[in-house]
């Protein structure tokens, strides 16, 4: 373009320099005018030529540009073919294997008081309730396998290997099936599973924020309530607010149930979950539960790690449990997180207790009103570090009345005061409570190490409890519930 213009200018200058001397030499004005006109004509011609040249250059440039575009587009198209997924992925028989994961938990624990003597006055322990073994130990190995059975069912089984009285035992913690395709927001779960009472009960221990269960779980749920049963849930067709209504029926073999009679379910439970978001960063959930337990025969204190003799007191009667749980979670834009969580339980038990000592038995009426709650807050400083605080409290008010101090009928009646005290059903003025501090480190999604200190006033004397806990997950990346 520049060269074209220069060339034109040069030609014009040459022509002008040739013509100018001639015009100077011309004597007549007419001749001068002619020359002038000639020059003008020439100028016009050159200008036209320059314009034409410029136009050609412009067209050429445009062509080049569009060629470049085409090239980019072709390149893009080639790339597109390259980036498309291959049609068939190779499959093999073991790609249908269920997702399998192991969770290992263990740690080191130190207590001031004897952990085997752990108890609450008026609320005898049952189920798996109790403290971790003192000293260094492996607490639990959990193995979970899960997969869709077919297009209708999802199945999950968790085998737990726990330490119990110094020995490891294998236990089917959970084994259940969920329906996947029922219409109208309905769902069924059947098999063995954790009841949806309260908030923490459905969470496996490795997902808890403290190394041990809240006192109210120890007292009312035997640490965690699970049983064989059926659950039906319905999720309302709302759009923003979750409303989930559910009902469960359990066999009633494990604490707080006991001694299934062969009927269809001795434990009936109804619950509702409501939850939603507040703003962009906060979410909450509220749960309300009512569980009605028909207890045929429930042994207690028989499981408090070595203390109970096999012939502990047995309770038969009604046990009603109501619970309200609330969780609030905020994810701050800075990456920090806050979790506030609380659960409040009320229990009403009414029935009879048989107390045995050596060969003698006594029968007494028992009417218990119990309350228990905890409140906890967890603060996550950054991706790895968290700290938490928890306060627990229990309250029992029992009325006991001797029916027959000589149930076995050998004329050797047991002493009433002694029976009430030793059965563990006698409540006292002492209300158990506990403060717990927690600090944990989560180097990756799959590992966590926790330090915990608790001042536990479950018994008359305070117990200082120190724990170091590790939680390690191997294998499949499970999905976590809220």
């Amino acid at each position, binding site marked *: 373009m520049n060269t074209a213009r220069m060339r034109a200018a040069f030609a014009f200058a040459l022509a002008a320099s040739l013509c100018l001397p001639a015009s100077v030499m011309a004597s007549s004005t007419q001749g001068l005018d002619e020359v002038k006109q000639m020059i003008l004509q020439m100028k016009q011609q050159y200008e036209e030529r320059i314009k034409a040249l410029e136009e050609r250059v412009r067209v050429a440039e445009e062509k080049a540009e569009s060629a470049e575009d085409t090239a980019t587009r072709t390149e893009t198209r080639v790339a597109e073919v390259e980036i498309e997924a*291959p049609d068939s992925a190779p499959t093999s028989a073991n790609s249908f294997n269920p997702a399998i994961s192991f969770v290992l938990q263990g740690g080191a624990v130190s207590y001031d008081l004897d952990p085997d003597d752990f108890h609450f006055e008026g609320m005898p322990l049952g189920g798996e309730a109790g403290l971790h073994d003192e000293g260094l130990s492996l607490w639990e190995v959990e193995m979970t396998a899960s997969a869709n059975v077919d297009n209708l069912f*999802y199945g999950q089984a968790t085998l737990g290997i726990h330490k119990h009285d110094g020995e490891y035992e294998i236990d089917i913690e959970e084994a259940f099936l969920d329906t996947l395709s029922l219409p109208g927001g309905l769902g069924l779960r059947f098999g063995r599973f954790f009841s949806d009472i309260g908030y923490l009960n459905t969470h496996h221990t490795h997902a808890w924020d403290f190394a041990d269960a809240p006192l109210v779980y120890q007292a009312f749920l035997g640490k965690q309530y699970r049983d064989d049963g059926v659950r039906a849930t319905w999720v309302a067709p709302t759009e923003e607010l979750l409303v989930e209504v559910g009902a469960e029926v359990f066999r009633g073999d494990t604490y707080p149930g006991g001694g299934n009679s062969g009927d269809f379910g001795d434990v009936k439970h109804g619950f509702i979950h409501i939850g939603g978001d507040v703003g962009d960063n906060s979410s909450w959930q509220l749960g309300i539960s009512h569980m009605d337990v028909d207890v045929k025969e429930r042994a207690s204190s028989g499981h408090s790690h070595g203390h109970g003799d096999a012939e502990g007191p047995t309770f038969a009667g009604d046990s009603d449990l109501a619970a309200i749980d609330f969780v609030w979670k905020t994810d701050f834009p800075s990456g920090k997180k806050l979790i506030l969580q609380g659960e409040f339980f009320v229990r009403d038990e009414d029935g009879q207790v048989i107390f045995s000592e050596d060969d003698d038995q006594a029968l007494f009426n028992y009417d218990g009103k119990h309350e228990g709650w905890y409140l906890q807050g967890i603060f996550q400083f950054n991706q790895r570090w968290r700290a938490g605080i928890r306060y627990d409290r229990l309250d029992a008010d029992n009325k006991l009345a001797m029916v027959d101090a000589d149930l076995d009928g050998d004329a050797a009646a047991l002493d009433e005061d002694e029976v009430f005290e030793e059965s563990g059903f006698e409540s006292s003025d002492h209300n158990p409570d506990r403060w717990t501090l927690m600090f944990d480190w989560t180097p990756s999604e799959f590992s966590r190490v926790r330090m915990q200190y608790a001042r536990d006033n479950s018994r008359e004397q305070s117990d200082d409890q120190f724990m170091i806990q590790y939680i390690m997950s191997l294998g499949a990346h499970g999905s976590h519930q809220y």
Partner: protein
Amino acid sequence: MKQFMRLLILSGILIPFSFANAQLKVFACVPEWAELTKILGGKHVKVYSATHARQDPHKVQARPSLIARLRSADLAVCTGAELEASWMSMVQRRARNRKVMPGRPGYFEATDYVRLLEKPKRLDRADGDIHAEGNPHIQLDPRRIKVVAAALAKRLKSIDPKNSNAYQQRWNSFDKRWRDSMARWKKKAKPLQGKKVVVYHREWIYLLDWLSIKRIGSLEPNPGVPPTPSHLAKLRTLQKPDMIIVSPLNNKKPAIWLRDKKGGRLVTLPQTVGAVAGTKDYFKLFDTIISRLLKAGN
């Protein structure tokens, strides 16, 4: 009679309106697919995004509102390749909506349609939070977005056949506009070819691959693991990077440290639509990314 007529006219106006308003409810796992669905669906879809641009999609909770949203969704659009593994399957099982279960037409995974990069040669958690199927952060590659968009348009047509023509038209116009934009972006980004960058998380690989930029290191020692002092010390032995790329979600301190030690320009790029101001739509997202890179790269 007059009132009856009025009612009749009113219902005549309202009924077609309510039918026209029967939009397809779409649950998008991440903002980029929400945006893409809006582009392709227009007024025929009502889109909800489960995460916003300031959340890490790896770490979302299966929170109650997500269960409620999925409960009434007609279509769920997710990334797949395990990006949403820690929460989506739980939400799907709890929401009790069979339309959006895996394998059903109502569940769409973008990574089903494109080839993934960085498929790990060995699967070992010692290498961090790696994904067996490959790097799932495909949202910053216009070539792959186009392939995903084509598949998504097809899916919209198949689950909402009465608006099939509208989806086809929207796809056609998107396709044309996107091709033009791609050519424009590529041309504009030519000076970036061969530049060397250090990234924070390995979420930029598709963008870098598209623009022929070389990644010479990352601040995270392993994907999902925050920078450690020993790893940063290793980065000091690198050649000088032209740029250090972070997203608005990342901690800038390690990046600033590296810049001070090794030089290069620190550039914050939006990792998805809406992550920085002025990137609400997918076209503007790439305009912003390229202009920020050009500004930092010169």
